[in-house]
């Protein structure tokens, strides 16, 4: 039971980061119909932006690092939206995947050129102390990471459900042509969507870098596939669904690692994907324009 609770907690921490990346993925796919494979690498850029600032001014804490991460990732995301992602709108889904994958290759290798291909140590922004919550022991960093990711997810939910821009976002997801006919500036909402998704990824990236104490130019590969799977399992009709599935996949992976073997961990997500696609091809919670 203790192992179960402990792995449940670990899974929630990992799953919350999957959720944040998956939400950015889902936002891009729902609003622009572009599979943005560069998104995990925007996440990576955010991680290194935070690293650069804390390395330069070590006195600044986590908060400044996260602002820097958001700024770096947001800037890259914004430029990419203008140059690559927006022109890909309306093209075959696979073409958008290949185009953004090209961008991902460029980002990864450009960053590897700057920081080197090996993982780099991430500054310790929070102490490495354990907190006991009932039978579960978590580090301060894990708790902070979970809290930050949960806060981001809450903010996205608030934005999508509670603001006029969010309503416009959902309208475009449903019917872009009708939304435009009702006076929604589709291109502007697309810009804002990618910018928000990128900034969110940047904040989460700093928190993940702090959590694991290392950053690598190729960290995006891991998160990209997981986030993609989360989006597909959930379907893109409800962003909250993507969040729940992200957490669930994190928990499933942690439980598989705890009870079976760590070599099966990466396979677990795929088995979930196959199972869900077989019974509900549009995802657990349904999809737009499936």
């Amino acid at each position, binding site marked *: 039971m203790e192992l179960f609770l402990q792995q449940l907690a670990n899974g929630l921490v990992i799953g919350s980061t999957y959720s944040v990346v998956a939400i950015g993925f889902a936002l891009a796919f729902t609003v622009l119909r572009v599979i943005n494979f560069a998104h995990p690498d925007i996440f990576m850029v955010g991680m290194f932006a935070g690293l650069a600032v804390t390395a330069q001014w070590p006195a600044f804490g986590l908060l400044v690092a996260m602002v820097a991460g958001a700024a770096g990732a947001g800037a890259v995301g914004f430029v990419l939206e203008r140059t690559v992602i927006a022109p*890909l709108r*309306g093209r075959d889904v696979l073409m958008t995947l290949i185009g953004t994958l090209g961008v991902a290759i460029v980002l990864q290798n450009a960053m590897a*050129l700057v920081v080197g291909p090996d993982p780099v140590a991430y500054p310790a922004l929070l102490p490495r102390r354990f907190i006991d919550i009932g039978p579960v022991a978590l580090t301060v960093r894990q708790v902070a990471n979970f809290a930050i990711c949960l806060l981001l997810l809450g903010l996205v939910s608030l934005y999508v459900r509670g603001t006029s821009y969010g309503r416009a976002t959902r309208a475009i997801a449903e019917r872009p*042509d009708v939304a*435009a006919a009702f006076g929604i500036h589709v291109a502007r909402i697309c810009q804002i969507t990618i910018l928000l998704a990128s900034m969110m990824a940047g904040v989460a990236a700093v928190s993940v870098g702090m959590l694991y104490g290392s950053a690598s130019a190729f960290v995006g590969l891991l998160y990209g596939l997981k986030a993609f799977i989360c989006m597909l399992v959930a379907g893109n009709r409800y962003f909250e669904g993507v969040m729940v599935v992200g957490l669930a996949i994190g928990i499933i992976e942690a439980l598989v690692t705890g009870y079976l073997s760590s070599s*099966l961990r990466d*396979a677990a997500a*795929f088995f979930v994907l196959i199972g869900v*696609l077989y019974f509900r091809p*549009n995802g657990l919670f349904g999809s737009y324009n499936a």
Partner: protein
Amino acid sequence: MNFAAFEPIVIFTLLNVVMALGLYITALSGQLSMATAAIAGVGGYTSAVLTVKFAWPFLPAVVVAALAGALVGTCLALITLKMRDFILKLTTLAFGEALAVLAFNFDYIGGANSFTGIGLKTTIWTALLATAIALYVAWRFDASRLGLASRAVRDDPIAASAMGISIAFMRAITFAVGGALVAMGGAIQGHYMLVISPHDLGFFVSLNFIIFLLFGGLQTLWGPVFGAVLLTALPEMLRFTNEYRLILYGLIIVLVVLLRPDGLLTRTPTGRAVRILGYTLVPARPVASRASELKARPLPAYLLRRQAAE
């Protein structure tokens, strides 16, 4: 500058051409499989097991590997028969990953430690022969009634079935022939790399072949050939740029996707109808792809103009 240094590049390029042509035939009925690497892996494992564990000669092992690929391809086609575009691609992706996981946990074929001890059988002549076979098959398939029928299914399934074409049969046959070619390429590659690991079956390897196809263009069989040759050789040709070469590689892919939506080689490179020797080549835009454009395009033109005027 001796030839031996280039031999691996030439062989890998030729084998990539074989597998790209296999994927091209699969795609003729309208469905891009995302399990190419897995089917190539099936071929590789089959021929490796036959030659190593049963001491079969090279040639029959490759033939059986191709048959195994055809079988797996047919299964994939039958599984995905009722599925629609995007979901189908994802199911092929999941199918490939499931095969990779199976290979990972199946100790008879080495499991996570990879299958080792395969004999070196592939020479440049084997690769050339395989390429010739693949080109011949793809060329004949393209021009045959089967090729025409599968393209009819791709462009408009409803109209095609109204004309008496069985969609299920066309899907199955394109997946089978394509799977056979891919598995043949995979088997021959296995006898050159001498080791097959479950990682070679994964999504990112499959993605390479899709890039070959979309980069080269799907309208003629020369598109995939061109894409495979260029993109396999390109990282080597860019070697003088040292650490920048992968960045350039990525940039070239992005530029082609942005500037040439139908791939580099299309039926009419200038985008206009061309008359050659009495034949008129019209830019081919499949009906189905135009329909998806209409659905996905956010604004009709008259609205776009109004928005710009504001």
